[in-house]
């Protein structure tokens, strides 16, 4: 029986030996797997794959709980194969070496130094496969005074400036409300893997690419940092941050306003004077005709009052209807969309095919996050759910590593797999 694989052929010539977990690592190899790379997840049989804490945690379909039933784990590990190897045993280590020897890349996001302590420093990987591309992703990287510090998404966001730069004046930081840097860390990690493979294909050289997730996080605050390094102006100053306003480029009105109902909101952004003129026509109230508001400088000078005026108009209107009326005039606007709004009632996602339904061996049918791109020739395909613990162990041992039935039986008997 052939191993299950994504229907995409884009990366079907590549094999990844994958020891990642959570979203920051697993998200990177999900992208590669959806484009056809053979991603072989290696997990620990002794502790039931628990180096990925998401394996057995909510959400669950129909409240069915278990190590194979975690909804987040399924979301991040579609189209991958799953095997178990006990890396405490010498035979287990040998097995991983055999897998590395036939892989193009090795990926992991353990805390810095953990994989080396398990017996697999880069030198060992390169001894087994000289041109291997090895990518490690930890909070602070393999070197530096904080390299032993432990992180997860919100900690990375806190120490990279992203939490601080999300908020309103006079209030504590609002932060990101999710592990934004797990998503972006995964994207950067995928870029590291693929750019490493491009380099290998050109030169024959493998290497160890080490990522400290906080550093790309800092790089996502670029213009604010240049204002500091060039002009000496910190973002920690009176009146800042105000991240619902827009400074680069300067826009006004530009905010999130209360709409009719309880906790319902609408975002409006006037990019220029023409946008304002159109919005003023939609609003059609006397204050909107105020000459002071005809220019950006005038609107910026009195932004607090202007925001209060706009909100007095939005507050009595349905967020969807008002956003649609404003957009119809050519001005950017959107209801602050709930998960249900954007997943069940938005042609912008449904027509894009953004929520593919997968079949998971134990969960059954469930929808997952797709990818926000389409390729004209070798588009991504997501149909297979995440692997159950050890679901493909025997198939991989036989079809990828070429082991015979006797060897496989003996590996099971010795609890190596």
């Amino acid at each position, binding site marked *: 029986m052939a191993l299950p694989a994504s229907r995409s052929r884009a*990366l079907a010539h590549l094999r990844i030996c994958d020891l990642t977990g959570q*979203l920051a690592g697993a998200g990177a190899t999900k*992208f590669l797997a959806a484009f056809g790379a053979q991603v072989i997840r290696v997990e620990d049989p002794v502790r039931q794959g628990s180096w990925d804490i998401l394996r057995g945690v909510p*959400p669950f379909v129909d409240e069915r709980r278990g190590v194979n039933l975690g*909804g987040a784990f*399924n*979301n991040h590990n579609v189209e991958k194969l799953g095997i178990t190897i006990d890396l405490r045993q010498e035979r287990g280590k040998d097995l991983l070496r055999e897998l590395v020897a036939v892989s193009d890349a090795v990926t992991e996001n353990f805390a810095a130094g953990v994989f080396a302590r398990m017996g697999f420093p880069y030198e060992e990987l390169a001894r087994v496969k000289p041109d291997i591309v090895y*990518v490690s992703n930890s909070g*602070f*990287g393999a070197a530096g005074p904080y*390299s032993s510090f*432990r992180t997860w998404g919100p900690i990375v966001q806190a*120490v990279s400036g992203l939490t*601080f*730069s999300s908020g309103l004046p006079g209030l*504590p930081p609002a*932060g990101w*409300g*999710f*592990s*934004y840097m797990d998503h972006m860390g995964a994207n*950067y990690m995928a870029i*590291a893997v693929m*750019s490493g493979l*491009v380099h290998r294909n*050109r*030169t024959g050289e493998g290497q160890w*690419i080490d990522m400290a997730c906080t550093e790309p996080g*800092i790089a996502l*605050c670029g*213009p*604010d940092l*240049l*204002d500091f*390094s*060039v002009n000496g102006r910190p*973002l920690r100053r009176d009146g800042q941050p105000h991240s619902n306003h*827009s*400074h*680069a*480029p300067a826009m006004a009105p*530009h905010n999130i306003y209360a709409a009719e109902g309880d906790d319902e909101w609408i975002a*409006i952004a006037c990019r220029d004077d023409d946008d304002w003129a159109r919005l003023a026509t939609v609003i059609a109230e006397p204050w909107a005709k105020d000459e002071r508001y005809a220019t950006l400088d005038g609107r910026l000078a009195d932004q607090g009052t202007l925001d209060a005026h706009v909100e007095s108009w939005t507050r009595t209107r349905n967020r969807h209807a008002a956003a649609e009326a404003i957009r119809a005039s050519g001005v*950017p606007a*959107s*209801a*602050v969309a709930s*998960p249900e709004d*954007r997943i069940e009632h938005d*042609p912008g*996602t449904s*027509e*894009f095919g*953004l929520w593919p339904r997968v079949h998971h061996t134990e969960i059954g049918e*469930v*929808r997952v*996050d797709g990818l*926000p*791109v389409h390729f004209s020739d*070798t588009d991504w395909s997501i149909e297979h759910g995440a692997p159950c613990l050890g679901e493909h162990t025997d198939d991989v041992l036989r079809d990828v590593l070429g082991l015979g039935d006797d060897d496989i039986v003996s590996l099971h008997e010795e609890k190596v797999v």
Partner: protein
Amino acid sequence: MSGAAASSTGPLDGVRVVELASDHAAWAGKLLGDLGADVIVVEPPGGHPGRSYGPFVDDEPGPERSLTWWYYNTSKRGVVLDLDDPDGAARFRRLAATADIVLEGEPPGRLDAIGLDHRDVRAGRPELIWVAVTPFGRATSRADEPATDLTLLAGGGPVWNCGYDDHTLPPVRGGGNQAFHIASSFAAMSALTALLHREVSGTGQFIDVSMHAAANVTTESGSFDWLVARNTVVRQTGRHALASITQETQVQCADGRYVNTGFPPRHVKDFASLRDWVDECGFRDEFGDIVLLDLAVERGGISLGELREDPLISEIYGAGRSALVFLAEHMTPEEFFVGAQQRGLAVGAVWSPEEAFTNEHVVARGFPVEVDHDDLGRSFAYPGAPFIAPRSPWRISRRAPHVGEHQDEVFDED
């Protein structure tokens, strides 16, 4: 792409990218350029409007003084072409035909109308990879709707997750034009995927990136909690939006700045570290719950299962959290962050971007890099490598180009 590379070149050395200047895709061009690609950014006459975005060097506006333009256009060469003029269009078609990758963020239909879309150019160059980054993708019924970073993040999910426990306050858009970053990262990943595929197939392809879709798959549990269990997450100050309300994790320090206290301890060694830290600081008398930390150590830690059943365990768990809050309130964010992490507790300082950029760790790693602005006779610190690849290093090869700075050089090559 042939021949052995010297070890100092980036992984995309020898790859040419022709980028039509845009807000949407500028970050993707920078990602590819800093990885060694030869990126040529094409602007309209007079330069791209992005040159008018602040802040400006020395606060003096000017097309060569925008720090936003500087940041997003490192490692690129710059040319000017008027695509609406037949001669400009012809030159663009010839230039695009020299590229491995074309990157653009034009409104859907605009390039087709002037005969410069991917079909026109790829017809004579099937190996070309063409990446279009648009607000709603090229092919959905929303394709022509106006959008900005704010409205994309509001309609695409991230804003729903962000804000405060007090829901009379509006939800919050995270700063820094992240909708552009999210979409651009997927654009760069897609370009690399297509490049790797081309190495075996010989052909390129067209890639349609939707910024709205990109935001929608960048919400963590915002999406999958709904997809799996039809749960709706709710926003909470400085921590994960979840379907249930969790305890606060953000604490204000003695100097008014904040820290994230992470998860309270459960393991015996963490309780012991925390208790010893309170003692070392001389807070034993002031922190009343210290006896509960002692008890936690005696008991060998606690488990989450016991937490639900035993009120004493619940008190011990609460004391662990209180100890973190108490310590944070009595020191600076740096003292709390480094002190806790050295004791094995995963907490964070909520730093401003400039504090993050100048902290001892990233400085020791060489993350800030100096970029020479020869035109001003000055150099400035920029954020550096997102990852360390010793044999194919990331590098800013040049400052952002002036308007038309490389016109002669590029078209002489052509």
